[in-house]
């Protein structure tokens, strides 16, 4: 049985766990480095990236996960999780920390404050139409040529919202808030 961790420091952890368990994946809430034993991949949930970054450092997970990510450990980050993976953060707090593993620039709250949060159907490569929920979402403003764009808000791929670079997946919306598990399934199938 596939065993996937969900970073459980703060955020919508249980939605991710429920969705993975629906796909017959065993999930492990990860709060300390010891929780990383025997995992085939990990999900970074939505939440507040500044709070999660703070807790990653105090728990020792920043270091332990950083080493795993350097060794190609698979990670799927949604919203705050995407920010934590990104190499460049715009409009973050001063010197906001991240793993810097996904070669993209993201602008925090790049679509506006909560009042501008929205749902919209997007077309996902290999999956089809998907109802995407954006909540104070980060906007992906630059991607390197190593990064594949799997979904975009426009037809030309100029506004990426789901990206993949090797074993790292980043999503500016929240597939875990819907009942549609196809994106999680694609990540699990890649493990």
């Amino acid at each position: 049985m596939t065993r996937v961790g969900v970073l459980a420091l703060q955020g919508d952890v249980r939605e991710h766990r429920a969705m993975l368990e629906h796909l017959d994946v065993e999930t492990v809430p990860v709060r300390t480095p010891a929780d990383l034993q025997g995992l085939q991949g990990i999900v970074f949930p939505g939440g507040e990236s500044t709070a999660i970054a703070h807790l990653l450092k105090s728990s020792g997970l920043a270091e332990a996960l950083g080493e795993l990510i350097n060794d190609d450990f698979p990670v799927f980050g949604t919203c705050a999780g995407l920010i934590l993976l990104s190499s460049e953060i715009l409009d973050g707090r001063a010197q906001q920390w991240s793993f810097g593993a996904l070669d993209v620039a993201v602008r925090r709250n790049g679509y506006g404050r909560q009042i501008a949060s929205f749902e919209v159907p997007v077309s996902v490569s290999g999956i089809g139409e998907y109802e995407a929920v954006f909540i104070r979402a980060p906007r992906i403003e630059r991607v390197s040529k190593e990064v594949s764009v799997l979904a975009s808000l426009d037809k030309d791929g100029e506004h990426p919202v789901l990206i993949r670079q090797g074993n790292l997946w980043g999503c500016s919306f929240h597939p875990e808030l819907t009942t549609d598990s196809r994106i999680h399934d694609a990540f699990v199938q890649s493990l």
Partner: protein
Amino acid sequence: MSNSAQTGSTLVKRGLADMLRGGVIMDVVNPEQAKIAEDSGAVAVMALERVPSDIRRDGGVARMSDPQMIQEIQATVTIPVMAKARIGHFAEAQILQALDVDYIDESEVLTPADEANHIDKWAFTVPFVCGATNLGEALRRIAEGACMIRSKGEAGTGNVVEAVRHLRTINQQIRRLQTADASELYALAKDLQAPLPLVQEVAERGELPVPLFCAGGISTPADAALVLQLGAQAVFVGSGIFKSQDPVRMASAIVEATTHYQDAKVVAKVSTGLGEAMKGWETATLETRLAERGW
């Protein structure tokens, strides 16, 4: 962006509450405090002119905060900024929505503006959180459009006893619904003074349809660990941080305890050498019980 984008849907409004789970929302009265809160790992700040313990001490009518201070705090931090409107004062809520706050707290901490009606929260794009002391009150607020419920506790006291009472009451009443026969839910809805469809939904799910957070009296890491173990999904800390001896350490310690609430070793570590918590009040001697406001 496509023309079919929809803002203000129930999913989008409740979704932000989901993102705050496992976090600490801190009351702040100026940008300096907001910065400390963000640096300490708060998931959101509540911008208000006076923390509840000062409102309690000063008396008088407590109203929505000056938009200028809310805007200064918005300009200082990157995390969500919440603000309070008086119960039933939909014009204050309209102002807060116009200011682009991320969540409105229709709060018993302020002096109520309407003794019968709460705000019709469906009419707003911005989501609302409301307090509750029991399940019926929580479901009435959800029926009016609240997207997050916080157990009320007794704000500004530094005393967790009321928060525990309200959380236990809500959860006991949910368990009662889960064990009821479907034919008993009509009478239970009547007893709870709550809409039947919501009562049926809670009986089915075994929890509220929106996140349940805890507020009112949390002033130590141990308090946070207590209410999370009692089923709260996140905590609001008002006076407990900036009325303590060392707010920077207290803020960070409560954040750690909220994440690691199941690990007493971590809670013990962060509780060590914290300095004095806020002084606090014995609730039995209070002249004003804020939790009684709300209908």
